């Protein structure tokens, strides 16, 4: 019986009644006993009911259309809080607000009860979340597959200026967000060996024997599109031990053996690896990658066979995107399923595989390209190693016909890196097994072609393409910045939420005095809104009339928080030594986590705190400079920061940032970018106009030349720049760490190292000069607002809807299925 009725009414009375029902029947509480956390859970269950109705209706619609599906495989989905987003998507926020009033609470406080699931490290995971939302908004059949980590990215606490990592137990309050799907559980084999049998027809038949089995249990988190017409899902798998085995061991009385088995198995989905670009090489991480791949492929193949019976048209009905190389074992897993389980010959199986997969590269750091020990991989997945060897053998046969005399090139192209500890190059596997390889900005794609993977580009130029990242305006404007959204609504309506290019209609209003005044009021209001956060968490009293100058992103050397620090130190020294006040007072804010094992990044956090202590406690800086570090950066904090920012720091060494999406979030909210010609900054400049942002520093070619020619001389640079020399002296003389002598000396050595690949001092002068120009411009509030409005108006192209439309039409070949007018 197909039942796709939408059951729930959305008046405040209906919602209130349903909250009462969930308090009673889902939580076992009366209204008098209910805490605000209980009200949150009940309201979240109300929302889940509505989403489930729509999810079932969506599924029926897609099935009826026999639509091609996209599966997005990612080790990370940084989804952030769902309740607020879902209320806005369904257009029932106001009704919910009234409904919860009856329980004596206000909606903002209820929303604050929700955990902020941090199932990702940074940009890569957040991109995946934006993409899922856009797929649903665009009425496309697109689903996420990931891991249901018990612990997301660590909670960051700061003690005495140092980062302390605390566990993030988001799953404790996650029940109302998700639906466990035991009926879709899958068995995942690991380890074992290959036995070389002959089949009944005397053919070679390698059998994967003696494996251990893990059960993957999925949890579905609804992914609701704008307006609620389409609700897809994010399917996250948790690893559980095989129950039958467990029970037997328990029955035999060996409780500890059973528990050990349970713990080892569950370890797989226990924790997200907390590093965005440093490879750990740990067996558990490889196990996680395969666990995701095995669960996802079993589910996707099963869905396909449920609908079509025939596996041979798999690629016509399925597209799979690999978000970085982390899930690239999916290529071998699909080959294994087709060849071993579906009895398909190698060639047609390989055609299906190549036509199904596409791979997104996210890095330009050669050392961040993932490799795994061939020995480890063969130990964990013996059958997959055989398949990789066969893929490579056939691939090299093809390559050798093109480059018969170029053995070095063939060695670079090979999936294996030979050596004492032979390695499997996951990027090579992903490229060989995919029909599309994309970079995430125009510059990044060019650099992939010319620097990172030139051999593959030479071999298959048509495989490579650019898909500049995007951000969803529903999260990063409507939810993050209700004030600006309301102002825009007054003038141009809300159509821009579904079609962000329409936001350009406000461009003429940049010259409208009344609009400019309102725009500035909204920005000031957003700054006032985060003052309590700054006071409580960053320990600073900030003036909302000062420039809010924000660098919020992972702490990493290439992102150059150190350059920002040097610039602030220079401003401080100019004030206290020379009496030069900044043209406008400024509040410099940092936010971001450092990978727990990344010592330099953690030292940078301490350095920010040392600097902030000195500057904020020096009375001479009052009314001129404040420095703060906002701990535990995550989606919910990002929403507040992007709405409040005036100046957005995007200052990575050119050629290192693949795209960035923080740059887009800030600009879309009317912050002016100060940045290098790196990643998507270049395209932002093209769209918003060079006069509306602040570009400085070396470009990617100049950086590459300087590194190749070894002409970077940091000592000479500081000798010629007294302001920089003064900052460097201050680092050496403990001026910014008076109570802890020698603490910052590492930075002095680091910055004077001619081998610093990030060339911090090369860009110092132009950075300081450019930022001071920005502060001078800020003094003219109307002129500044004019630039800010131009940014908001011209950022429509950076909607993730545009990115998804490009992926859909050029790579995945999927289309919207609206169910309206027979589409």
């Amino acid at each position, binding site marked *: 019986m197909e039942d796709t009725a939408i059951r729930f009414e959305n008046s405040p009375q209906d919602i209130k009644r349903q909250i009462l029902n969930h308090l009673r029947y889902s939580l076992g509480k009366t209204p008098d006993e209910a805490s605000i956390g209980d009200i949150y859970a009940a309201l979240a269950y109300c929302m889940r009911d509505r989403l489930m109705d729509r999810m079932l209706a969506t599924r029926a619609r897609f099935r009826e259309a026999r639509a091609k599906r996209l599966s997005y495989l990612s080790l990370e989905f940084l989804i952030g809080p769902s309740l607020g987003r879902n209320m806005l998507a369904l257009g029932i926020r106001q009704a919910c607000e009234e409904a919860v009033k009856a329980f004596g609470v206000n909606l903002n406080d209820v929303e604050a009860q929700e955990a902020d699931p941090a199932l990702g490290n940074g940009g890569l995971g957040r991109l995946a979340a934006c993409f899922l939302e856009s797929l649903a908004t665009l009425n496309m059949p697109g689903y996420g597959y990931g891991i249901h980590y018990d612990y997301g990215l660590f909670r960051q606490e700061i003690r005495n200026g140092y980062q302390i990592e605390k566990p993030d137990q988001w799953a404790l309050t996650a029940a109302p967000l998700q639906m466990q799907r035991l009926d879709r559980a899958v068995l995942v*084999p690991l380890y074992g060996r290959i*036995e070389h049998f*002959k089949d*009944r027809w005397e053919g070679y038949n390698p*059998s994967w024997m003696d494996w251990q*089995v893990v059960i993957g249990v999925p949890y579905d988190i609804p992914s609701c599109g704008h307006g609620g017409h389409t609700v897809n899902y994010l399917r996250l798998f948790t690893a559980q031990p095989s129950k*039958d085995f467990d029970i037997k*061991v328990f029955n035999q009385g060996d409780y500890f053996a059973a528990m050990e088995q349970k713990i080892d198995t569950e370890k797989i989905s226990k924790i997200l690896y907390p590093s965005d670009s440093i490879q750990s090489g740990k067996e558990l991480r490889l196990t996680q990658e395969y666990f995701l791949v095995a669960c996802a492929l079993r589910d996707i193949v099963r869905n396909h066979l449920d609908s079509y019976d025939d596996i041979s048209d798999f690629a016509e009905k399925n597209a799979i995107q690999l978000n970085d190389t982390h899930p690239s074992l999916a290529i071998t897993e699909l080959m294994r399923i087709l060849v071993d389980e579906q009895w398909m010959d190698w060639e047609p199986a390989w055609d299906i595989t190549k036509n199904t997969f596409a791979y997104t590269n996210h890095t330009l750091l050669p050392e961040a390209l993932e490799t795994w020990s061939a020995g480890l991989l063969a130990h964990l997945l013996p059958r997959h190693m055989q398949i990789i060897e066969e893929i490579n053998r056939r691939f090299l046969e093809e390559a050798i016909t093109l480059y018969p005399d170029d053995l070095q090139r063939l060695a670079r192209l090979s999936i294996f890196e030979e050596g004492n500890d032979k390695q499997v190059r996951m990027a090579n596997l992903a490229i060989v097994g995919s029909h599309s390889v994309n970079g995430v900005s125009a510059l990044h794609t060019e650099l992939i072609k010319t620097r990172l993977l030139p051999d593959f580009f030479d071999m298959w130029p048509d495989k490579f393409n650019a898909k500049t990242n995007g951000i969803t305006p529903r999260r990063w404007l409507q939810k993050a910045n209700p004030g600006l959204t309301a102002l825009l609504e007054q003038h141009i309506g809300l159509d821009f939420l579904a079609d962000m290019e329409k936001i350009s209609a406000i461009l003429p209003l940049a010259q409208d005095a009344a609009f400019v005044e309102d725009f500035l009021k909204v920005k000031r209001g957003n700054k006032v809104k985060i003052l309590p956060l700054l006071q409580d968490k960053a320990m600073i009293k900030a003036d909302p009339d000062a420039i809010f100058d924000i660098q919020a992103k992972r702490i990493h050397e290439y992102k150059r928080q150190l350059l920002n620090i040097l610039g602030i130190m220079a401003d401080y020294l100019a004030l206290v030594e020379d009496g030069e006040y900044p043209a406008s007072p400024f509040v410099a804010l940092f936010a971001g986590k450092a990978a727990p094992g990344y010592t330099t990044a953690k030292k940078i956090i301490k350095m920010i705190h040392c600097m902030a202590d000195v500057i904020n406690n020096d009375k001479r800086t009052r009314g001129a400079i404040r420095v703060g570090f906002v701990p535990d950066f995550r989606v919910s904090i990002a929403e507040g920061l992007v709405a409040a920012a005036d100046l957005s720091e995007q200052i990575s060494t050119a050629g290192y940032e693949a795209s960035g999406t923080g740059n887009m979030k800030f600009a879309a909210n009317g912050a002016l970018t100060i940045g290098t010609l790196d990643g998507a900054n270049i395209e932002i400049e093209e769209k918003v106009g060079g006069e509306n942002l602040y570009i400085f520093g070396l470009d990617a070619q100049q950086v590459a030349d300087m590194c190749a020619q070894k002409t970077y001389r940091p000592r000479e640079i500081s000798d010629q720049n007294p302001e920089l020399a003064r900052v460097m002296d201050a680092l050496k003389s403990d001026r910014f760490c008076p109570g802890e002598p020698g603490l910052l000396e590492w930075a002095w050595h680091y910055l004077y190292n001619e081998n610093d690949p990030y060339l911090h001092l090369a860009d110092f002068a132009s950075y300081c000069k450019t930022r001071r120009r920005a502060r001078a411009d800020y003094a003219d509030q109307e002129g500044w607002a004019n630039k800010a409005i131009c940014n908001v108006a011209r950022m429509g192209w950076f909607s993730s809807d545009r990115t998804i439309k490009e992926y859909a039409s050029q790579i995945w070949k999927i289309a919207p299925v609206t169910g309206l007018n027979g589409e």
Partner: protein
Amino acid sequence: MRYENSITSGVSILTIKEQALDASVAQDLKETLATYAQRAKGAFVVDLSHVEFLDSTALGALVSVLKVLGGASELYLCNLRPQVLSVFSLTRLDRVFKIVPTVGSAIQALSG
């Protein structure tokens, strides 16, 4: 390990009565099958209709019996639940064992 044996149309049928075939019964399974194979002179049917879960140790036991029987074996497996059949596909042992849908089809194959 619990099992039943019977003879239908002259064909020996061993029905495994365990829900789970795993490490705890693997040795027993191996010995039972070996004994039964000897008695049935290599031609018999194993009915797995009660088995919901089969792990790699139990699979190893089946394989070792098949090896002992050699190429001339007439061992048929039948009534495999999807979960159990998937284990044979995973290991490509569905190309090694003779797997048929029902006891009837096994008897037919052996009688033919």
